[in-house]
Protein backbone atom coordinates (compact mmCIF):
# COMPACT_ATOMS: atom_id res chain seq x y z
CA UNK A 1 0.00 0.00 0.00
CA UNK A 2 0.86 3.67 0.04
CA UNK A 3 3.26 5.04 2.63
CA UNK A 4 5.12 8.25 3.43
CA UNK A 5 8.35 8.49 5.42
CA UNK A 6 9.55 11.80 6.88
CA UNK A 7 12.54 13.11 8.80
CA UNK A 8 11.82 11.80 12.25
CA UNK A 9 10.93 13.82 15.29
CA UNK A 10 12.31 17.26 15.99
CA UNK A 11 14.54 19.42 13.81
CA UNK A 12 16.06 22.42 15.58
CA UNK A 13 17.65 25.23 13.57
CA UNK A 14 19.04 28.67 14.13
CA UNK A 15 17.27 31.52 12.37
CA UNK A 16 18.79 32.25 8.96
CA UNK A 17 20.06 28.74 8.29
CA UNK A 18 18.62 26.63 5.46
CA UNK A 19 15.76 24.23 6.07
CA UNK A 20 15.46 20.77 4.58
CA UNK A 21 12.82 18.31 5.73
CA UNK A 22 12.95 14.93 4.04
CA UNK A 23 10.01 13.07 2.56
CA UNK A 24 10.08 9.81 0.62
CA UNK A 25 7.13 7.76 -0.48
CA UNK A 26 5.88 4.47 -1.84
CA UNK A 27 2.87 4.38 -4.11
CA UNK A 28 1.29 2.03 -6.63
CA UNK A 29 0.35 4.78 -9.06
CA UNK A 30 1.78 8.18 -9.90
CA UNK A 31 0.68 10.22 -6.91
CA UNK A 32 0.27 13.87 -6.04
CA UNK A 33 2.54 14.91 -3.14
CA UNK A 34 1.74 17.59 -0.58
CA UNK A 35 3.25 19.41 2.36
CA UNK A 36 0.90 20.53 5.12
CA UNK A 37 1.91 22.84 7.98
CA UNK A 38 0.34 23.06 11.43
CA UNK A 39 1.21 25.91 13.75
CA UNK A 40 0.58 25.54 17.46
CA UNK A 41 -3.14 25.43 18.31
CA UNK A 42 -4.13 25.83 14.68
CA UNK A 43 -5.57 23.55 12.00
CA UNK A 44 -3.22 21.94 9.48
CA UNK A 45 -3.22 23.78 6.17
CA UNK A 46 -1.80 23.13 2.74
CA UNK A 47 1.67 24.59 2.14
CA UNK A 48 2.68 23.03 -1.20
CA UNK A 49 1.40 20.60 -3.78
CA UNK A 50 3.32 18.83 -6.55
CA UNK A 51 2.48 19.64 -10.14
CA UNK A 52 1.98 17.14 -12.93
CA UNK A 53 4.21 19.14 -15.29
CA UNK A 54 7.37 19.05 -13.14
CA UNK A 55 7.13 22.71 -12.12
CA UNK A 56 8.56 23.41 -8.70
CA UNK A 57 5.86 24.59 -6.30
CA UNK A 58 6.77 27.48 -4.01
CA UNK A 59 4.96 29.21 -1.17
CA UNK A 60 6.12 31.52 1.62
CA UNK A 61 9.74 30.89 0.65
CA UNK A 62 9.35 27.12 0.83
CA UNK A 63 9.77 24.89 -2.21
CA UNK A 64 9.80 21.19 -2.95
CA UNK A 65 10.73 19.17 -6.02
CA UNK A 66 9.13 15.87 -6.88
CA UNK A 67 11.79 13.36 -7.90
CA UNK A 68 10.07 10.27 -9.22
CA UNK A 69 13.36 8.42 -9.67
CA UNK A 70 14.07 8.58 -5.93
CA UNK A 71 10.40 8.83 -4.80
CA UNK A 72 11.14 11.98 -2.86
CA UNK A 73 9.51 15.37 -2.23
CA UNK A 74 11.83 17.15 0.22
CA UNK A 75 10.78 20.52 1.64
CA UNK A 76 13.38 23.30 1.47
CA UNK A 77 13.80 26.93 2.38
CA UNK A 78 16.95 28.97 2.01
CA UNK A 79 16.68 30.86 5.29
CA UNK A 80 14.64 29.79 8.32
CA UNK A 81 12.50 32.30 10.21
CA UNK A 82 11.20 32.10 13.75
CA UNK A 83 7.66 31.96 12.38
CA UNK A 84 8.49 28.74 10.51
CA UNK A 85 8.39 26.83 13.80
CA UNK A 86 5.57 24.34 13.31
CA UNK A 87 4.68 20.73 12.61
CA UNK A 88 5.12 19.72 8.97
CA UNK A 89 3.39 16.78 7.32
CA UNK A 90 4.20 15.24 3.98
CA UNK A 91 1.26 13.48 2.32
CA UNK A 92 0.36 11.70 -0.85
CA UNK A 93 -2.81 11.24 -2.83
CA UNK A 94 -2.82 8.11 -4.92
CA UNK A 95 -4.95 8.82 -7.97
CA UNK A 96 -6.36 5.33 -7.78
CA UNK A 97 -7.47 5.73 -4.17
CA UNK A 98 -10.69 7.71 -4.56
CA UNK A 99 -9.72 10.76 -2.51
CA UNK A 100 -7.78 9.05 0.29
CA UNK A 101 -4.77 11.03 1.53
CA UNK A 102 -1.92 9.25 3.32
CA UNK A 103 0.17 11.30 5.76
CA UNK A 104 3.64 10.82 7.17
CA UNK A 105 4.30 10.97 10.90
CA UNK A 106 5.21 14.63 10.85
CA UNK A 107 8.38 16.60 11.54
CA UNK A 108 8.45 19.28 14.19
CA UNK A 109 10.60 22.24 13.16
CA UNK A 110 11.84 24.55 15.90
CA UNK A 111 13.65 27.71 14.80
CA UNK A 112 15.62 29.57 17.44
CA UNK A 113 17.24 33.01 17.43
Amino acid sequence: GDSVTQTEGLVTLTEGLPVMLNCTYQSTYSPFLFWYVQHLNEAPKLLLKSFTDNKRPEHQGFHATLHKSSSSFHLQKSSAQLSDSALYYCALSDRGSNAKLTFGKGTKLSVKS
Partner: protein
Amino acid sequence: GGIITQTPKFLIGQEGQKLTLKCQQNFNHDTMYWYRQDSGKGLRLIYYSITENDLQKGDLSEGYDASREKKSSFSLTVTSAQKNEMAVFLCASSMDRDTGQLYFGEGSKLTVL
Protein backbone atom coordinates in the same frame (compact mmCIF):
# COMPACT_ATOMS: atom_id res chain seq x y z
CA GLY B 1 -14.18 31.27 1.91
CA GLY B 2 -15.59 28.59 4.10
CA ILE B 3 -15.05 27.12 7.51
CA ILE B 4 -15.05 23.77 9.23
CA THR B 5 -16.49 23.72 12.72
CA GLN B 6 -15.84 20.87 15.10
CA THR B 7 -17.78 20.37 18.31
CA PRO B 8 -17.00 20.00 21.06
CA LYS B 9 -13.49 21.38 21.10
CA PHE B 10 -12.74 19.42 24.29
CA LEU B 11 -14.50 16.21 25.28
CA ILE B 12 -13.94 14.38 28.55
CA GLY B 13 -15.40 10.93 28.97
CA GLN B 14 -15.21 7.82 31.08
CA GLU B 15 -13.62 4.57 29.98
CA GLY B 16 -16.22 2.44 28.20
CA GLN B 17 -18.43 5.40 27.35
CA LYS B 18 -19.84 6.06 23.89
CA LEU B 19 -18.73 9.52 22.72
CA THR B 20 -19.66 11.51 19.62
CA LEU B 21 -17.79 14.26 17.80
CA LYS B 22 -19.49 16.49 15.24
CA CYS B 23 -18.19 18.35 12.21
CA GLN B 24 -19.90 20.92 9.99
CA GLN B 25 -18.55 22.49 6.76
CA ASN B 26 -19.95 25.30 4.66
CA PHE B 27 -17.63 24.86 1.66
CA ASN B 28 -20.25 22.66 -0.05
CA HIS B 29 -17.52 20.05 -0.42
CA ASP B 30 -18.42 16.50 -1.39
CA THR B 31 -15.78 14.59 0.57
CA MET B 32 -15.30 14.69 4.32
CA TYR B 33 -12.77 12.96 6.56
CA TRP B 34 -11.98 12.10 10.15
CA TYR B 35 -8.32 11.82 11.10
CA ARG B 36 -6.79 10.99 14.43
CA GLN B 37 -3.66 12.91 15.44
CA ASP B 38 -1.23 11.36 17.92
CA SER B 39 2.17 12.79 18.69
CA GLY B 40 4.83 10.92 16.74
CA LYS B 41 2.27 8.94 14.74
CA GLY B 42 1.06 11.57 12.33
CA LEU B 43 -2.46 11.79 10.97
CA ARG B 44 -4.25 8.49 10.57
CA LEU B 45 -7.47 8.17 8.62
CA ILE B 46 -10.43 6.77 10.54
CA TYR B 47 -13.35 7.23 8.13
CA TYR B 48 -14.13 9.26 5.06
CA SER B 49 -17.24 9.92 3.01
CA ILE B 50 -17.37 10.93 -0.65
CA THR B 51 -21.03 11.96 -0.59
CA GLU B 52 -24.09 12.08 1.64
CA ASN B 53 -24.84 8.67 3.20
CA ASP B 54 -21.55 7.22 1.93
CA LEU B 55 -19.00 5.80 4.40
CA GLN B 56 -15.52 4.45 3.66
CA LYS B 57 -13.26 2.88 6.28
CA GLY B 58 -9.78 4.22 6.77
CA ASP B 59 -6.80 2.49 8.33
CA LEU B 60 -7.99 3.04 11.90
CA SER B 61 -11.75 2.43 11.76
CA GLU B 62 -11.99 -0.32 14.40
CA GLY B 63 -13.67 1.03 17.51
CA TYR B 64 -15.33 3.90 15.65
CA ASP B 65 -18.57 4.54 13.79
CA ALA B 66 -19.34 7.44 11.47
CA SER B 67 -22.43 9.04 10.02
CA ARG B 68 -22.95 11.37 7.02
CA GLU B 69 -26.64 12.21 7.01
CA LYS B 70 -26.19 15.56 5.28
CA LYS B 71 -23.64 16.85 2.82
CA SER B 72 -22.51 19.51 5.29
CA SER B 73 -22.06 17.32 8.35
CA PHE B 74 -20.01 14.30 9.35
CA SER B 75 -20.02 12.81 12.83
CA LEU B 76 -17.68 10.33 14.48
CA THR B 77 -18.56 8.06 17.39
CA VAL B 78 -16.08 6.36 19.66
CA THR B 79 -18.06 3.22 20.48
CA SER B 80 -16.30 2.43 23.77
CA ALA B 81 -13.72 4.93 24.94
CA GLN B 82 -10.40 3.54 26.11
CA LYS B 83 -7.64 5.31 28.01
CA ASN B 84 -5.23 4.93 25.07
CA GLU B 85 -7.61 6.95 22.89
CA MET B 86 -6.61 10.30 24.31
CA ALA B 87 -5.89 12.14 21.10
CA VAL B 88 -6.91 15.00 18.86
CA PHE B 89 -9.49 14.22 16.20
CA LEU B 90 -9.38 16.32 13.05
CA CYS B 91 -12.22 16.72 10.60
CA ALA B 92 -11.48 17.78 7.03
CA SER B 93 -13.23 18.28 3.72
CA SER B 94 -12.17 18.45 0.09
CA MET B 95 -13.72 19.69 -3.11
CA ASP B 96 -11.97 17.67 -5.75
CA ARG B 97 -11.48 14.01 -5.00
CA ASP B 98 -8.39 13.88 -7.15
CA THR B 99 -6.30 16.79 -5.93
CA GLY B 100 -6.17 15.82 -2.28
CA GLN B 101 -6.28 19.38 -1.01
CA LEU B 102 -7.94 19.16 2.37
CA TYR B 103 -9.36 21.89 4.57
CA PHE B 104 -9.13 21.03 8.25
CA GLY B 105 -11.02 22.01 11.35
CA GLU B 106 -9.13 22.99 14.49
CA GLY B 107 -9.65 19.64 16.15
CA SER B 108 -11.44 18.03 19.06
CA LYS B 109 -9.32 16.87 21.96
CA LEU B 110 -10.56 13.73 23.65
CA THR B 111 -9.56 12.86 27.23
CA VAL B 112 -10.64 9.58 28.77
CA LEU B 113 -10.58 9.31 32.56
